[in-house]
């Protein structure tokens, strides 16, 4: 493998709401994104990557703020730059900019009207959107006097007030307290349940573990990998995965598995526990299941310790740097 990691998964069978086709964008001599191709289907997609990876450029391209130098970006079959495509897009920017002099309710209503929603429907949708983000009882305060969390919710409400098919949210969890984060994550899940595609850009990888059904890893302007975290992990099967097993017969287990081809290393850090470095985890777990049934071994716990987004991101970055 020399570049993008691609996956044949269930998402491919769904009709894409947005599609990047070999998109390249450069700023003078600097490449923002390079040959990016992927599709967004209904559901929550996490956009991950370090600073300078190209996430912001990708979002600006998708929201029609930038035009690609090469390739094309389609939203519901329409070029993302076109005004018509923007009916299908809701965007919550990461910058803390709003019409400061307005109340939250006025701001959301204004955005509904600017999207061409007629006034009576706009009022209903404003109330529904504010209720959706938990701001219906606090939206009459002037935005200038609102906390960052409240402003973030109001920005989210404006992004969905015209009921878009695709919701793009840039770094929504920055500066939000844990309770707020949980509520926002629930909000994204509700959007998914309504059939919307949600693209969430974030540096907070742990939340993506719990939130995103699919992730897009970006690095150096390229999509390094796309798929579910488990699928990406499976794709990187050659990279050893750590499996921690607790059992009263841990040493006996170690004796059995040490000869298996998938097991690259064994540690016995404490009594009744072994940690294995495993390649091709599917094959390993099939063989392991057969072993414990055959030998009637009771297990206290089995866990993989490095399938978090953070660990996978490190894998993807190191793998692509090494040209896997």
């Amino acid at each position: 493998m020399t570049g993008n990691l691609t996956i044949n998964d269930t998402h491919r069978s769904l009709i894409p709401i947005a599609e990047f086709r070999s998109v390249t964008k450069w700023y003078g001599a600097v490449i923002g994104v390079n040959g990016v191709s992927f599709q967004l289907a209904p559901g929550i997609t996490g956009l991950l990557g370090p600073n300078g990876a190209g996430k912001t450029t990708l979002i600006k391209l998708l929201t029609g703020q930038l035009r690609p130098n090469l390739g094309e970006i389609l939203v519901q079959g329409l070029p993302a730059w076109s005004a018509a495509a923007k009916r299908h897009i809701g965007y919550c920017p990461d910058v803390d900019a709003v019409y400061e002099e307005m109340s939250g309710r006025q701001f959301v209503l204004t955005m509904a009207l600017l999207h061409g929603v007629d006034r009576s429907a706009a009022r209903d949708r404003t109330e529904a959107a504010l209720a959706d983000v938990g701001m219906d009882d606090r939206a009459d305060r002037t935005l200038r006097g609102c906390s960052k969390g409240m402003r973030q919710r109001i920005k989210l409400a404006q992004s969905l007030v015209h009921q878009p098919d695709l919701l793009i949210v840039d770094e929504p969890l920055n500066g939000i307290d844990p309770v707020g984060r949980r509520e926002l994550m629930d909000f994204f899940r509700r959007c998914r349940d309504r059939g919307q595609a949600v693209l969430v850009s974030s540096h907070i990888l742990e939340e993506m573990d719990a939130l995103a059904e699919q992730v897009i890893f970006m690095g150096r302007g390229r999509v390094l990998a796309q798929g579910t975290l488990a699928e990406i992990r499976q794709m990187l099967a050659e990279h050893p995965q750590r499996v921690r097993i607790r059992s009263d017969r841990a040493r006996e287990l170690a004796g059995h598995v040490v000869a298996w081809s998938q097991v690259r290393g064994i540690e016995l850090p404490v009594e009744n526990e072994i940690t294995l470095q495993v390649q091709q985890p599917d094959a390993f777990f099939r063989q392991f299941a057969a072993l414990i049934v055959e030998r009637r071994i009771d297990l206290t716990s089995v866990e993989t310790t490095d399938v978090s987004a953070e660990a996978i991101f490190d894998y993807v970055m190191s793998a692509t740097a090494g040209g896997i």
Partner: protein
Amino acid sequence: MNRPSATSAVSVAVSGVPANEDATSSACSVFSACRQLLALTLRRQLFSRQTLVGIGLTVLCCLIVLAWDRQKEPTPKKFAEQIVVPIYIAFLMPVLSIGYGASVVGGEREDRTLIYLLITPIPRSWIYVVKYLSANALVAGWAAGTLVAMCLLAGEHGRHALQPFLAASLLGSVAYAGLFLLLGTLFRHGTVISLAYWFFLEVLFGNMPGIIKRVSVAYYVRCIIYDAGSELDLGPRGRVAREMFLPISGHAAIIVLATSIALLLIVGLSVFSRREYRDLS
């Protein structure tokens, strides 16, 4: 919440709504959004620092007129030459135009709220036209109103001077507003660039002898005034003065300003429709 009423080809095919009906509905909603944008822009501009500055300068100009009117022998010619041209044409009109023209897009860009307009389904060219109309309405309305107030405060002499100045004032303020709107669209710090432009091209070059002043809007405004105010004996008199100013006819000046206004609108539309604003998020 209800699911979106998507306007894609797929949804149209499924719902059976004819394509032309869908297009009409879409155009209506864009038109309605433009009306909302116009109201929003006018409201935000009116309740802004620019308005406070405009009120302050207008009151100051009116006080100057009242003070001028107390002199022994006021005449319409004196009023025009001592008050309207130096204070109104050369100062108040461009400053009002910079205040509203440069900030109508430039202010939203600096506040980073422009992003909220660019993500709406209003075509960019329509956004620019709405911004252009609102800037022109404010600048021309304010400029004309101030001119009328100043002329009325100056009594009989002022009323004589009003007619030759009104058309020039309207044309000049619209040209300035279009120019400064373009500068605000082009540059991140449009107000500063506009002030620099006004000072160097309008004030310095506009008062230099020879044809270099023909790059300034103020020159053509003065030509219209001098032509229309010939009854008041306005404008450069004598061979030397005329050779220094090199006036053109009022008719030619109107054509130049009208052409400039149209060109500025076309260039602004083209720039705003294609420009990628990378500094908004």
